[in-house]
């Protein structure tokens, strides 16, 4: 079972936290801090698995993480999950985000926390992997978006097309922001 999914940036600022098991507020924050502490000091050329971390549950638990540009995606799982399976699930998640946001970047995650949560809910439900097929996930998210559109909701529509243009140009880069999918940070920036 997946116990928690955390996304934070290179400086430990949380970008998304989803706990599938109940911890109190303070513990959750501590878990995020501890996880960041554990993950951030790891080099690039070491394995993507981490054991330990007292808070989240001791020896049965594992942190499986990937580092994309400015963001760390960390899945905290128990022994019933396959390590490499989860590692690829993170990849599926990020690729899905990339498709939904078109060249997803950290800012997308900040401003659309709810949307990211919705995408995640189609992948993982109550700690169990629900869907691993990217196209299927996107279909589901789209279907929901369409429903909403049909209600003629006047503002803040979730249509993908509107968001596509929400891009931020960075100095030194032409037009497009840096996609999260790039594994190595090119120009580290802080948010």
């Amino acid at each position, binding site marked *: 079972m997946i116990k928690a999914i955390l996304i934070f940036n290179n400086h430990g600022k949380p970008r998304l936290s989803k706990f599938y098991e109940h911890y109190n507020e303070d513990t959750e924050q501590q878990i995020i801090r501890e996880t960041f502490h554990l993950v951030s000091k790891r080099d690039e050329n070491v394995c993507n698995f981490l054991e330990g971390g007292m808070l989240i549950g001791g020896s049965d638990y594992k942190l499986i993480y990937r580092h994309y540009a400015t963001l760390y995606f960390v899945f905290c799982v128990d022994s019933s999950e396959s390590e*490499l399976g989860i590692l690829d699930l993170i990849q599926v998640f990020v690729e899905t985000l990339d498709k939904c946001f078109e060249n997803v970047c950290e800012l997308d995650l900040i401003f659309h926390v709810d949307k990211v949560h919705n995408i995640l809910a189609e992948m993982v439900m109550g700690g169990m992997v629900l869907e691993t097929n990217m196209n299927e996930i996107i279909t589901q998210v789209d279907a929901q978006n369409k429903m909403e559109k049909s209600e003629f909701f006047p503002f803040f529509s979730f249509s993908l097309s509107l968001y596509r243009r929400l891009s931020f140009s960075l100095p030194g880069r032409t037009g497009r922001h840096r996609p999260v999918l790039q594994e190595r940070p090119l120009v580290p920036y802080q948010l």
Partner: protein
Amino acid sequence: MSDVVEKTLTALPSLLSLDSHPGSAKLSSTSKLGNLIRGITELTSKHEEEKLIQHELLAIKEQVSSPNTTMMKELMVRSIYCEMLGYEASFSYIHAIKLAQQGTVLEKRVGYLAVSLFLNESHELLLLLVNTVLKDLQSTNLIEVCMALTVVSQMFPKDMIPAILPLVEEKLNHPKEIIRRKAVLALYKFYLIAPNQVQHIHNKFRKALCDKDPGVMTASLHIYLQMIQENPEAYKDLTPSFVTILKQVVGGKLPMDFNYHTVPAPWLQIQLLRILSLLGKNDQSTSEVMYEVLDESLQRAEMNHNITYAILYECVKCIYTIHPKSDLLEKAAKCIGNFVLSPKINLKYLGLKALTYVVQQDPKLALQHQMTIIECLDHPDLIIKRETLELLFRITNGQNVTVIVEKMLEFLCISEDDHTTIDLVGKVAELAEKYPLKYNEWFIETMNTVFSLGGDMMQPDIPNSFLKLLSEGFDSVEEDRKLRLFAVNSYIPLLRGEPGKLPQRFLQVISWVLGEYSHLREDLEPAEVLSLLAKLLDMKNSSSETKSWVLMAMTKLCKGGADASVTQEVSETYSSSLDTVLRQRAHELQYLSQDPELRARVLPRGSCGNFAFVSEALAAGAAPYKPPHQRQEELDQSKALSLEPYGLSLPISMSSCSITDRQSPTLLSMSSGLSGDTLKLDGIKRVWGREGYLAQREPVEEAAQVEVPSPIQSPGRQGEGDSLHSQTPTQTPTPEPEQEKQQLASSLFVGLASQSSVSLMGKSEPMPQRFRRKAKGQGLGSSFIANEQISSSLISPPSAVDNLLCNNLLDSNNASELAEQTSQLSQSLTTANGTCHAEAELTESDTKGCNPALRRDNCVVAAGPGPHNDPGRLTEVCLDSYLPAELSGLSHSEIAPLCANQSLNLSACHVQKEDSLILVVFIMNSSESAIQQIPAGEVTSYSVAVGQYSLTVKRPAVHVEVVGTVSYQLPAGTSQSLQFSYKVPLTSFIRPFVVSTEEYGTMWLSFSHDTKQNLTLINDNQEPLTATLNALKKKLQLHVVEVIGMEGIVACRLLQDLPCLMHCRVNAGWLAVWLRSPVPDLPDCLIYHCQRALQSL
């Protein structure tokens, strides 16, 4: 860097305004969130952030509670953001629920999302959501149903499940696949939190498993994995279904949509493999159903994508979990090799994990990869390093324990992670305790390091069991004394140094030990110890718990007189302490120090460590105590097949059940006694071998057990045995670091090859006799009667004789019953103790001069009173004369004393006959009693009884240890027993084997177990080959079949007739030896002896 952000963010509103022409609401909302985020980024301190967020929360609160606000959704997102940063926005919870209740679909979604992020199962507000969920479940809008199911699977109050259960159940028949799938997962969640409430719908789970949509089927596997984990027996009938599903998936029968990087539904495959491994565990017939599909999975998963490795890994684990099949095992082993050798670090990690998992079944595999393991030990990635240590922990035996512990301690010094430290400290302590007195000093020193590194984080049972070990001691009084003395000696300098730096727990241990045992060191004045202890009291950072330990130690030490001033002062200081415990201790100290008589009564020396009540409770059927980390280990079983002794799990409980069925109460209590004794929980049967599953040995043939200890080697001597195990040929000189690694490898992997695997698996290597723990309470010893039935009453009062006579006659008349009984006993021993590596067949030896009373399968010859009245002078020379006549002509080994107590002296020797090895046991009565009437069969005072046993080795090991017990009755009628163990080198069982060269050739090809090694040549004459072979022949009784040029072939057999062939070739100044045998381990053991033989020349 920050101006990059700033520019980005300042660009934000303008971009937004360009984008969002339809609604101005969007602009304002997003920019508010944008403002918030920008504000947070500009902050420099946590304090400012807090201020800003509080301000923001206030603003949200104000807006949220104003009626008809149109920006609920946006406000919720802002609250979510604040909550994510760790600031409580509890005022918004109720609004989130309201939003989920009343909003439009879009608002509902945000409302539900906020609820699932804010609340938890036990939150009281959640009850308000139940109605909303009910309503939405009945909605015709699919999106609403989906949202309701999602929130239900995230959290739902347990008590409210019945209210919505029928609705969720109904959804299993929903036409939409996505709804069915979510409903299945929601039901799984219910199953997790309230299993009894969903019991009635188990057949619906089956329907979900058969769903036409693979997605729904996949979701139902979550449930099945869980249920099968809990009770595999109930779902065995589903095995063919799972196999068929997996076959179809592997065969690519699923739609292309399910492919991920051209691999068909990898996650589904992983899930299925896990289920299969649970079903096939310990079940041959079920396992057989899945062999084919596993083979196919292994073959298909050969592409080089990450996810195929995930499948392969599960496959390998499954193959090693289910009932073994040799060709699958071979393929799996190859796979593990690929993992371990992979340059990809993630795969290496998993390879190590897999090795850790299988090493208990197949230690040779670790041996194959020893150099890689050594490299991983120095890997820059701490995780890899730790995993390697975990692996080493599982292959620890008596010979490599020091090296492995050293490596662990090295790691401990650099580890910063608390969790790792606690875990490793526990493991080191476990190892140190398991092989404690092998090297007294090493044990104490290791524990000292453990205490100082582990600090106050370690499991509290570590110091406790350490103290218990010290106080209970072992069989030998002298060893105990030495151990305690060494502990005292090592603590005094620590206290003289800087005790302030030591952790509290360590100080407590030190003060206890000094209190109990500092008197052992004669040159140490109690006054000095007292003043050292008093120093601890004055330290600022001493906790009051430590202080009370110190005060207790002082109470034990003070004798009045000169020490009085120190104790007086201390007790006065603390008798007014605010801490009641301290005050109590101080008063005790005060009174007891003034009244030596009372003190002697209250605290008699050596009164500590009386755990007899524990054994009594255990004998009465109480569950044995398990320290917390053991319990944790048991929980971790799925992590690795926990065959280690501490994993006191299913196998042992099953075996003790079988004992209960058939055995006497003594054995029952014996087994519980065993499980209470943490040092000897070796209760795992050996079911695995190189050739796969070992059939349950017919226990009838096991009349006696021969235990194989590791060859006890002092650290200094370790090296010589080592080179044998390193597989890399030593012909070419290797560069320096390489050599270091090889050295390390040999010291780490020593004992792996020569020992039968079971000892590694269970870490059940028996300790030599003197290291055995004392049998407490009901007496472990009684169980060993099974080993050798020397249970005739040797010293008994006349009244007991008749009774005994009867029994014995009964025994001999009813031989089959005896055999059965014996077999049961031995079996119970095997399972409960797990230490037998080789069994000796106890055959009937001669019955010369025996008395009817002792007409037993083994003969105990009662001899007349010895010529010497002083037992002390009864030396080996005179024992010689007791050797049975037919053996006296043959050469026998030195008669070695085995053990003794006040009434019996045991000695033994072995005699090599042409076709057997006879163990002769001399039992001498050294007591003054029982001299009056001497019915034959009794051993009168100072006389000797001789028993002889023919030994055979079933499973070879470097040394074979015979363990036995003499049970006897004292005149007083109390029965007693005396354990002994006797070690015989394997060479004693080796006999020449005469074959022709042709026969040799055919046999060579048919033998499966082999080993190769380079040995030193004897170079003192012209014909090094012949000289070496002759030397070996002389030492080991080998038969040289033929010598052709630079090659020679040699043959020998292990009694009775287990052949071993040896092919020798002179190559570059070495003798390249290749041994083959049908018996596993025999080549390894033999090469060890060849090496020793050549070295000793």
